[in-house]
C-alpha cells in the first residue's frame, strides 16, 4: 500500500489503492460492514474447529423445538438438530456461493454490457436481444434449465445462478456506458489510439461503476434465496446439507410457534446483505476521486 507513485517522488503520495483505502476507512458504515462480513466469514470458515459436523445432521426427535439455551445457542429445529451448527455450516454455502455468483455475474455483466454499450449498433442489438431472451425467462426456471444442461453440483449451481443474474447487470452496465461513450475524454482516448478494450475497461467502466456496484451488492440476498429455491427443487444443495435459504424454507411451517427458527437464519442473510451493501457503497465512494477526502 505504501508504494511510491510513478511521479519519481516529486510529490510524496499514496498509491491509487492506498488512496482508496484511505477514503474507505473514513466511511464508518462501510467499515462496520467490513468488520461484520469478516466476522461472519471467519465464523463460517472456521466452523470445523468448533462445531462437529455430526451436530448438523444428527437428528434427535425428543430434542425438537428447543428454544435457544446454553447448550443449543440458537435452539433446535423440527428434527432436533442444533440450529447453531446448521447456521454456521450453512453459511459456508450461502455466503461463498452467493458472493461467487454476484462476482461472476458482475464480471460477465461488465464485459457484455461494456461491449454492447461501447460498440452499439449490431453488437448491441445481438447482445441485448439475447439478454432480453434470458430476462423473459424467470430466474429460477433459467437456473433449472442450466443445471439440467450442465448436471448437478455446487459449482454448476453457481454457474446456473450467475447466468440468471447476468442479464440485469448487463442492462445496468450498458446504460451507464452509453451515457459516457460520447464524452470528450473518450474521443481523446481514441485520438491517441487506445484499443477498444482499453477504452471500455480503463475509461468507461470505472466511470460507470456506481450504480452497478450498488445493484450488485443488493443482489446477494436474492441469490441466497435462489439457492434455497433450487435446493427445494432438488437441484444444487440437497437436504440435509444446511444452507441459510434452505433452513428458512424448511422451517417456515413452524415459525408461527417457534419464530427463532426463521429469525436466526433470516437475520444472518439480512446481516450479510447489509454488510456487503455497506461495503459496496463505501467502495463506490472510495473509488470516486471526486468525493471529498
Amino acid at each position, binding site marked *: 500500500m505504501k508504494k511510491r507513485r510513478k*511521479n519519481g517522488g516529486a*510529490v510524496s*503520495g499514496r498509491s491509487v489503492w492506498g488512496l482508496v483505502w484511505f477514503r474507505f476507512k473514513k466511511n464508518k458504515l462501510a467499515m462496520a460492514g467490513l468488520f461484520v462480513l469478516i466476522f461472519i466469514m471467519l465464523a463460517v470458515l472456521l466452523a470445523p474447529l468448533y462445531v462437529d459436523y455430526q451436530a448438523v445432521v444428527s437428528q434427535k426427535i425428543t430434542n425438537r423445538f428447543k428454544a435457544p439455551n446454553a447448550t443449543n445457542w440458537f435452539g433446535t429445529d423440527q428434527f432436533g438438530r442444533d440450529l447453531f451448527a446448521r447456521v454456521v455450516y450453512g453459511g459456508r454455502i450461502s455466503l461463498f456461493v452467493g458472493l461467487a455468483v454476484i462476482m461472476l455475474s458482475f464480471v460477465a455483466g461488465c464485459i457484455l454490457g461494456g461491449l454492447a454499450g461501447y460498440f452499439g449498433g449490431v453488437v448491441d442489438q445481438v447482445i441485448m436481444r439475447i439478454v432480453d431472451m434470458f430476462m423473459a425467462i424467470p430466474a429460477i426456471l433459467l437456473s433449472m434449465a442450466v443445471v439440467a444442461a450442465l448436471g448437478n453440483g455446487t459449482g454448476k449451481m453457481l454457474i446456473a445462478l450467475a447466468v440468471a443474474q447476468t442479464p440485469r447487470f448487463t442492462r445496468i452496465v450498458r446504460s451507464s456506458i452509453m451515457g459516457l461513450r460520447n464524452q470528450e*475524454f473518450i*474521443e481523446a482516448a481514441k485520438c491517441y*489510439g487506445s484499443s477498444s478494450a482499453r477504452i471500455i475497461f480503463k*475509461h468507461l467502466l470505472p*466511470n460507470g461503476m456506481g450504480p452497478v456496484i450498488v445493484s450488485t451488492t443488493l443482489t446477494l440476498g436474492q441469490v441466497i434465496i435462489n439457492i434455497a429455491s433450487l435446493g427445494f427443487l432438488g437441484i444444487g444443495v440437497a437436504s440435509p446439507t444446511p444452507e441459510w435459504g434452505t433452513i428458512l424454507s424448511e422451517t417456515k411451517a413452524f415459525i408461527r410457534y417457534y419464530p427463532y427458527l426463521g429469525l436466526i437464519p433470516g437475520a444472518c442473510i439480512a446481516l450479510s446483505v447489509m454488510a456487503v451493501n455497506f461495503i459496496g457503497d463505501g467502495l463506490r465512494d472510495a473509488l*470516486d476521486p471526486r468525493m471529498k477526502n
Partner: protein
Amino acid sequence: MSENRPLVETRNLCKYFDTPRGQLHAVEEVNLSIKAGETLGVVGESGCGKSTLGRVILRLIPPTRGEVYYEGENILEYRGKQLKKMHVNMQMIFQDPFTSLNPRLSISNIIAEPMKVCGLVRNRREMAERVRELMEVCGLPARYVNTYPHELDGGRRQRVGLARALAVDPKFIVCDEPVSALDVSIQAQILNLLMDLQEQKGVSYLFITHDLCVVRHISHQIMVMYMGQVVEFAEKNELFKNPLHPYTKALLSAIPTIDLSRRNRERQLLRGEVANPINPKPGCRFAPRCAYAAQECLEPQTLREVAPGHKVACWRCQG
C-alpha cells in the same frame, strides 16, 4: 521538409450524416492545406461543420468521401500498425475541459496515458520524467501531479488537455474551440501558450473557433465556413482587410469594437436563420440570408482564387 509541401491536406472531404429526415451535409467538398508550423483558423457559426471537419481529419469520424493527407500520405488508407504514425503525429485539444479529462485518472496518469498506449516510454522513471517535463511546458506546477481533474479550474484543466495532446510529440493538433469555455483572461494565457509551443516545436494547428478575435490572434490563414462549405479562404490580414464574401463581411462587422470613432459604423446584420442542412439545394447556401442574392446564386458556387491566396465562393466577387 520542403517549405512548400503542406503538412496536412484534405481533398474533396465530405461528411454526410444519415438522419431520419434525410442526409445532413455537415462537411462539403473541403480542400485545405496546412504548412508545417502554421495555423489555419476555421471560423463559422455553430453547427456549420467546423468540429466535424476537425474530427474527420483525425479519423474520429469516418468521412463520406474525400482524402486526408499527412506528409503526402493518405491517412484514411492506414490500417493496423500504420495508424500509430497518425496517432503520434496528429492530436486534438477539446472544447470542454470539464468533460475531456477522465475524472477517475490523476493528472499524471492522464498525461502518461497516450505515452503508454503508443509505447513511447520504456519505464516508469522515464514516464515520470516526461510527465513532469510536459507539465512544465504547459505551465502546470509540479504539485498538481497527483491531483484529479475536478480539483483544477478550467484553465488548468485545459493545460492538462494540452499536455496530454503534446505527450506523443505531435506535429499537428486540431484545436476544437479550446478557449471558448474559458474566461477571457485565461483565454489569452492558453492562446499564448499555444503560440509559444508553435514557435518552439513547430507544431501546426487547425484552430476551430467562432471567436474572430481569437482567430485573428493565432492564425496565419483563415477559412470561413458556412453550412459545411468553405465560403472564403485567405491569409489572415488579407481577410480582415479585404473580406469579399457577403457572409465574411457580415461576420467581421459583427466584431464588437471599443473604438468610439467607429461607433456608428454601418453594420451588416444578418437576418433569418441558418437554412436546413438536411438535403440542401445546390447553389449558394448563404443566399437565403444574403443581402445581394440574385438569380445566379441558385447555381452551385465554387471556390475561386480572386487574388493570390484569396479564394471566395461567390460569383459576385471578381477579385
